[in-house]
């Protein structure tokens, strides 16, 4: 178990390091120098350009700049926004809470609905299963941005139950404003999780050891919970991990749709403004979220299924 943990942690750090090199390198090799963003349409004098390049450390070779940036990141210094002049860390921390709350609300919805629907379909073949299958087929084809517009037009504009954009004051106002975005994010993931759950539970229900439990006189609920669901967990956990990671990526879209001031909207804004230090930091953060979600799901799986523990590397 410890070996698996270390192995996973190593893989996680490697991926993060590689993607940081990739992100940093590619952004600074981009056509058009970063300092042009500062000058906008003005044509600076050569001296001014040199001065700015020096201030931004652009006159140093790339590996040196990368090293400076990396040590900065490790000390919590993510650089300075080229557009607002604020520290990048401040801009990110302003939106991080909102985004995390949004992802959390989404995943609660996904897990409750997806697991519930999938379980219902698995233990009730026939009509319930058919209805759930039909629902999931459609829901996995509804992208968050289409769901957003549907929800806005019905629940924000027609009914006026929830705000169509922005977030309110305090935690209550935040949660109120994030209900629709969370629903928009949850639609597609719900369908996926319901599907995965149904298939996993179906497969496990057909296993011989379930018969052993039944023939020992254990109550059906105990068998379902302790043997069927428990054993069906690994694929379900993988799915939840992947879907959480995917939700982080989808906040780019949904936060823009609902004008939610989170990391996703910040990313899209910074991309539009070519605010490279912010883009870099945010992209790395999203990659980190993605990688951590996947690694976490692997580790939880190993906790659930002892056979994976001794197997060591699973990849």
């Amino acid at each position: 178990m410890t070996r698996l943990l270390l192995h996973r942690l190593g893989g996680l750090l490697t991926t993060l390091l590689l993607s940081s090199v990739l992100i940093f390198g590619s952004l600074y090799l981009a056509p058009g120098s970063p300092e042009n963003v500062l000058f906008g349409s003005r044509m600076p004098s050569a001296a001014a350009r040199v001065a700015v390049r020096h201030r931004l450390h652009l006159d140093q070779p790339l590996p040196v700049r990368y090293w400076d940036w990396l040590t900065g990141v490790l000390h919590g210094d993510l650089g300075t926004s080229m557009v607002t002049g604020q520290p990048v860390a401040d801009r990110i921390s302003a939106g991080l809470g909102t985004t995390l709350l949004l992802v959390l609300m989404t995943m609660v919805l996904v897990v409750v609905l997806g697991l519930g629907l999938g379980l219902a379909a698995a233990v009730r073949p026939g009509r319930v299963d058919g209805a759930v299958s039909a629902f999931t087929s459609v829901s996995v084809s509804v992208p968050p941005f289409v769901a957003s517009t549907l929800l806005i037009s019905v629940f924000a504009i027609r009914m006026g139950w929830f705000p169509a954009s922005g977030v309110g004051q305090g935690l209550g106002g935040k949660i109120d404003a994030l209900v629709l975005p969370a629903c928009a994010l949850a639609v597609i993931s719900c369908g996926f999780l319901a599907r995965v759950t149904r298939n996993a539970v179906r497969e496990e229900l057909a296993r011989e050891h379930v018969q052993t439990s039944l023939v020992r006189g254990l109550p059906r609920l105990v068998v379902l919970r302790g043997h069927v669901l428990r054993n069906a967990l690994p694929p379900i956990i993988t799915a939840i991990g992947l879907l959480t990671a995917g939700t982080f990526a989808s906040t780019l879209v949904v936060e823009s749709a609902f004008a939610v001031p989170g990391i996703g909207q910040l990313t899209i804004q910074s991309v539009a403004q070519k605010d490279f230090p912010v883009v870099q930091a945010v992209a790395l953060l999203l990659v980190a979220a993605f990688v951590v979600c996947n690694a976490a799901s692997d580790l939880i799986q190993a906790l659930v299924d002892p056979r994976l523990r001794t197997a060591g590397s699973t990849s």
Partner: protein
Amino acid sequence: MREKLRTTTGRLGLAGTASAVFLLVVLLIALAAPLLAPADPNRQSLLDAYTGPSAAHLLGADGIGRDILSRLMFGARTSLLGPALVVGVSLLVGIPLALLASWYGGWVDAVVARVFDLIYALPGLLLAVLTVALFGPGLTPAVAALSIAYVPFLARIVRAAARQQRVSPYVDALSVQGFGVLRISVGHVLRNIAPTVVGQAAIAFGYALLDLASLSYLGLAVQAPTPDWGVMVSDTDALLKGYWLPVIAPGVLIVLTVLALTVLGARISGEKPPRYLRRAKRTGDRRVPNTAPVGTPNQKETTVGAVG
């Protein structure tokens, strides 16, 4: 011909056939948009702004009086072209890589697998957004980024299927007979796994469509005046004023197209149709021989069954 059509529809099932027909219609409309569209998709007439369905505009007009039906028809072109490019490029890159990896195994396989893992760790949407940050918004950078992001998705499937083929006796037999790598890989292995690859490519097409539409919605891929489904959905002005048709119509089209692609893809690659669509038909021995290669007609017939 008729007989062939019947077996095809039998194999695809009701939902699969309906999906195929729907996709065909969308494709034809996209190709013939200049002939079919009732109006120029970009012609504005402010007098018609936000008019509902009428004889002049069958689906109404948007905020600057452009004909929605025509925009939907022309929008099908960009909306389908993007994902087609993405899937095409990632297949062109992915299949040779996957065949090489599965044929040679060892370190070639390990390196390819590692690279795939790394790309897999980056969400396609994020990769596309970063690329746009570098090269500016547009369909080309978005397609390029997504092509890279989709390589592992398709290549992993090809690699797994091809590896299963690689160890089957007939490949050894062909090797012994002196056939080369290329001949065996393309002529036999690829042919045998074709249904799986085509099916998964259709599914990937659907996801790529979603991703590209999302990017266009964000203003990062197809640019505003160009008719495109994703761009049309981003018309928040119409939405906030309560005119839902200009926004919901393209949204529904996106959902239906992706739904049709996933249903058809699953059917082609030989997944069982969902229970509620399956009518059992029992002919002879239904057991699938263990040695049947992935997605051979033999297996497909036994697992897909007939759906009326």
